[in-house]
């Protein structure tokens, strides 16, 4: 160390000795700070509830009254109800580090009352199809998640919420913060029983399966076990179909399966990375997407086919779009609209597309069985396909009508589902226990769809895979012939 080093060290030592003595406030040992009078801002100030200290301070302010039974009585009419929230209720609660005012957003004011209740949705997104089995968008979170068993349908707001009265019409407190056990579905029975007054179906139904995505916004779950055999049969059918394609010889040469797959995949690869891919794209656009070949055959046939094909396609695209949007931004208004059966846009579009399929089926049936032009050969397979799709759409519309009827959805928005709403009015004249029948209707609709899936690779319906495939593969053969 040189001279400057020693001088620097000396200055640092002196500073270190002096600064703590004079630079910082010095607290004398053994003297209590004098209590000072309370000022307004001690209580009435915005705590920083992003910190644990802020949460504790904010909650201390609430529990000053609400932790004591004698300090938290409220008059409801003539009866007294208790708004007591014991502190030990939150010992093991996931919300124990959350400030009360985080959920009760409008209580920290004068007069001290809440108009909107606790706001779960400021942190939690709504459930999708998978957890709630049906988005339950008009049901308050508390109706399911709180332990109280008194639930009511608020007709003015068209919402299902916790009731402020018990079954003896006595006011009850809603301050019980215990949450219901939601591990199994027994808590669903609070509403889903025969003869309930909140407009719930009498049975707890499974979630829509991923196979329902063909027509409905659904989750990526299996839903009901009935789709397992349906998918197994579907898989077997596809396997036998594909293995049939790989049977036989290629240009009189006996090749092994490995060589067939290798040469076939190489052929596809060479096509994709060449100019021929534009021919394929043209074929796909004109013959697969726009159905040019059917139009060239007959305008009537094209119209009937398009009513069914495009309606199914649009519903599939819409459901996939809903799935993607919901999974990326579950809280957005677009996602909420897309998964909401009662949203005017969704209910109108789905009803309109369903009607298109139904009209297509009716026209096809009339063409086949009433007009019977000589070129239309009605095979057994065609009848089965028509019956399955017809049953599917019909049961869907009856199911929708029954849903609108039992949930007592008001004219606006229910009337946007124009066909379903009409059916729901017709159900007025068919006095039956629709609440109980809804479950059976649901299983009929889902069962028809399971049959559809299982039948797909065997009958007429397999053309939705084979026709585009042969169109795409066939064009290249033709092109090669032309070159030769």
């Amino acid at each position: 160390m040189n001279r400057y080093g020693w001088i620097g060290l000396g200055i640092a030592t002196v500073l270190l000795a002096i600064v703590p003595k004079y630079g910082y406030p010095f607290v004398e040992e053994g003297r209590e700070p004098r209590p000072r009078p309370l000022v307004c801002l001690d209580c009435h100030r915005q705590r920083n509830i992003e910190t644990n200290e802020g949460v504790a301070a904010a909650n201390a302010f609430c529990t000053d009254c609400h932790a004591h039974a004698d300090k938290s009585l409220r008059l409801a009419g003539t009866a007294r109800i208790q708004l007591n929230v014991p502190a030990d209720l939150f010992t093991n609660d996931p919300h124990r580090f959350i400030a009360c005012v985080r959920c009760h957003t409008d209580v920290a004011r004068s007069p001290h009352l809440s108009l909107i209740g606790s706001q779960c949705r400021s942190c939690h997104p709504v459930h999708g199809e998978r957890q709630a089995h049906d988005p339950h968008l008009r049901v308050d979170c508390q109706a399911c998640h709180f332990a109280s068993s008194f639930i009511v349908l608020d007709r003015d707001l068209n919402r299902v919420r916790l009731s402020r009265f018990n079954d003896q019409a006595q006011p009850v407190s809603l301050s019980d913060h215990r949450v219901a056990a939601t591990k199994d579905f027994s808590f669903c029975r609070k509403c889903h029983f025969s003869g309930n007054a909140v407009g719930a179906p009498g049975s707890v139904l499974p979630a829509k399966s991923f196979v329902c995505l063909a027509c409905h916004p659904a989750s990526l779950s299996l839903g009901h076990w009935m789709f397992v055999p349906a998918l197994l049969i579907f898989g077997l059918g596809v396997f036998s179909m594909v293995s049939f394609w790989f049977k036989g010889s290629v240009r009189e040469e006996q090749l092994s399966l490995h060589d067939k797959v290798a040469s076939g995949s190489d052929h596809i690869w060479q096509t994709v990375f060449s100019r021929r891919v534009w021919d394929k794209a043209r074929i796909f656009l004109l013959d697969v997407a726009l159905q040019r070949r059917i139009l060239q055959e007959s305008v009537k046939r094209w119209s009937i086919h398009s009513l069914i094909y495009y309606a199914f396609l649009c519903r599939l695209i819409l459901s996939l779009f809903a799935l993607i949007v919901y999974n990326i931004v579950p809280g957005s208004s677009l996602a909420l609209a897309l998964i909401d059966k009662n949203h005017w846009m969704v209910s109108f579009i789905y009803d309109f597309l369903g009607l298109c399929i139904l009209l297509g089926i009716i026209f096809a049936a009339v063409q086949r069985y009433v007009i019977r032009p000589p070129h239309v050969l009605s095979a057994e397979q065609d009848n089965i396909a028509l019956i399955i799709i017809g049953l599917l759409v019909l049961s869907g519309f009856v199911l929708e009508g029954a849903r609108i009827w039992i949930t007592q959805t008001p004219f606006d928005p229910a009337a946007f589902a124009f066909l379903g709403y009409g059916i729901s009015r017709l159900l007025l004249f068919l006095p039956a226990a629709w609440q109980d029948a809804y479950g059976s209707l649901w299983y009929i609709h889902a069962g028809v769809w399971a049959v559809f899936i299982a039948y797909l690779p065997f009958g007429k319906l397999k053309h939705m895979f084979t026709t585009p495939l042969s169109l795409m593969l066939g064009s290249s053969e033709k092109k090669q012939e032309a070159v030769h």
Partner: protein
Amino acid sequence: MQANGVRYQRFSVLHRILHFIVMLGFTVLAATGLTLAFSGNFAARAFASVLGGAAALAGWHKWFAVITYSCVIVHGLWFIYYKSVLKGKLTGPHSIAPSRRDVGEFAHHLRFVIGRSKTPPRFERFTYLEKIDYWAVFVGMNTMGLTGLLLWFPEFFSSFLPGFFVNIARILHFFEALLAIVIKFIIHGGMAHFRPSVYPGDSTIFSGKTTEAKMKAEHPLEWERLKGSEAPAAGEKP
């Protein structure tokens, strides 16, 4: 590339697809990973803001890690298929497994480069450099996958491993990543695509095919072997 003449298949469609996905996936992993590692850098901040912030970058990184590692799994499944269905051999002249002749070829190549040998070594199906390229990715993807998994689910792994394993995983993941980026983008890219004979790029891995002239020049022993057996090469490598 000349269309006339005999063309030899060097890579099957599966291997072309796997190479393509790994190429894309590795590039995205490198870009997002480097951005996260050097997050203070100006360019990293610009790139992160384009892709939606650090959380989004981490999301991209994880998704592309899953996609890239799934190629390793598919490759493993193909290996089982090769062994059990095609009854392929692991060793032999066509194999990518390292062997003693690679050491000899390396020494021979060095002698050729410094002018002590008149001719380059006569390579078989895979040169020692190609073997290094392959095994660097194969080993690297597994170690990166393992350490990455540890960093993705630290709570789960630290329930039975000591906590400092997470720190070790972090360090290994970072340095192995730098090593892999150098090897793949500079050494592999340079060796495969910037050699004077193929510059500006070798299309063999994308088309799967190579010409007879290139076979004679680059893999003369394999060419002679195939000439002898007469059948065109089936794209097989373990």
